[in-house]
């Protein structure tokens, strides 16, 4: 099971096992990791599961849909080069050791 590290805006961090096929968003919610709200439950409709991905790993992630790209357009905290919606990142073996940083706020 890939280990994923969630770094909070205040630098607290948690590393949890996220089963293959489970999204980075679900990995946080089911383990009680704060910083990811996920109001729409994983449908890329709310943009409250925004994360900044480790820049070294960003390019290797599954590609972003136009819908996700547009939803990241006006997030509560500014979009960066490495912004993704964590509900759209389904873990596979390549996610081992991935680090994502949660923004200061999601709403």
């Amino acid at each position, binding site marked *: 099971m890939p280990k994923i590290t969630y770094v909070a805006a205040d630098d607290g961090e948690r590393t949890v096992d996220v089963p293959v096929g489970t999204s980075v968003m679900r990995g946080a919610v089911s383990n*009680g990791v704060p910083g990811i709200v996920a109001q729409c*439950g994983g449908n890329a409709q709310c943009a409250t599961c925004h994360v900044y991905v480790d820049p070294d790993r960003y390019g290797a992630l599954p590609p972003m849909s136009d819908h996700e790209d547009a939803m990241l357009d006006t997030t509560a905290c500014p979009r960066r080069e490495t912004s993704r919606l964590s509900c759209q990142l389904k873990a596979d073996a390549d996610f081992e050791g991935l680090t994502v940083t949660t923004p200061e706020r999601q709403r």
Partner: protein
Amino acid sequence: MTHGADGRVVVVGAGIAGQQVAFGLREQGYAGAVALVGDEPGAPYERPPLTKAYLRGDIGPDELEPRPAELYRRERIDLVRARAERIDRAGRTVVLDDGRRLPYDRLVLATGARNRPLRAPGGDLEGVFSLRTRREADALREALAGAGSIVVAGAGFIGLEFAAAVSAHGHKATIVESRARPLGRAVSAHTAAHFTSLHERHGTGFVFGEEVAALHGDRAGRVREVELTDGTVLPADLVLAAVGAAPDTRLAEGAGLPVDDGVAVDARLRTRDPRVLAVGDCASMAPASGTGPRLRLESVQNALDQASYAAERLARPDEGEDAPPYGRLPWFWSDQYDSSLQIAGLAAGHDRAVLVGDGDEAFSVLLYRRGALAAVESVNRPADHMAARRLLAEGRAPTPEQAAAPDFSLRAFARAGG
């Protein structure tokens, strides 16, 4: 920081609002006891997929449950599976149907809403379903496997999402709606027309302006026909009653708390008894200004945002009237076939609509009420939706004339700082 270590919050209703109050309290550093009372079997779950991915069979039961039992233990949230019978406000206790009594110093009602039954003769025949709970979705999934003719009463979000979901398995439903168009007052005429034609293209039939007058069954008590108010008879062996919902106010009424289309709460979500709050579908909120109509919404966003607000207030009991009133912008979404509808704000009562975009497959409709932007509906235009949320939250808006300009972009307007 820990506070309220000797406190005790009881949350009644384990839907997403109740779950969010309980876990939100811990996120806020609340150290007291937290009990979450739910009367459905199994682990607390999320309802939105019940009309979508779960009904289609794309996801299983585990994926409806956002948090495993282990997380409840770790966060010390006592999951109480029972029905709350009544509130003893003088004794600050919730009385359960199994005889247990749960003491509280703060109580949150997150009792949600109940589907309205189909008020027509034969509404209780076998094969007539309702869809709110996981159990009801499971029953529908099973019945759909052998279903031939499907009739849906009500063209609201539940009826439309159901028709779209079953279409994925080749079922073509007929939707009967008493109004002249789908989605009632929740959307503009343009957006309603888009969804009508979208469904028709996928084989869903509509009968507008009629209601179900009676349901007729066979000797075994199974539904066979739906008779409409104009006498039309539709064959049906599966009927979904999707005719709206009513807030569950039973506990509040029993406890002598005011009810007005929901549990009446002030702009800080408190009932007349300051120890008792209400959130989500069951709560009817007074405006912060003190004048104007109450607002009760049945939506995921409203449930979660009100729950988070309540958790913040409960974790900071000393702030009293200094607390800011609840003030989150309402927004909604619905996925049907390849159309993603997102609404920011409240469309009800709009008197002017301005269309932006191609008007067919991807568009936004800006809805104005007495000259002020009230809501923006976006179909397959997520960037518009996000821009609209920001503009409405900040109280900025283009004039209808600006929005009607041929090159108008909501996104550019939002970025330009108005």
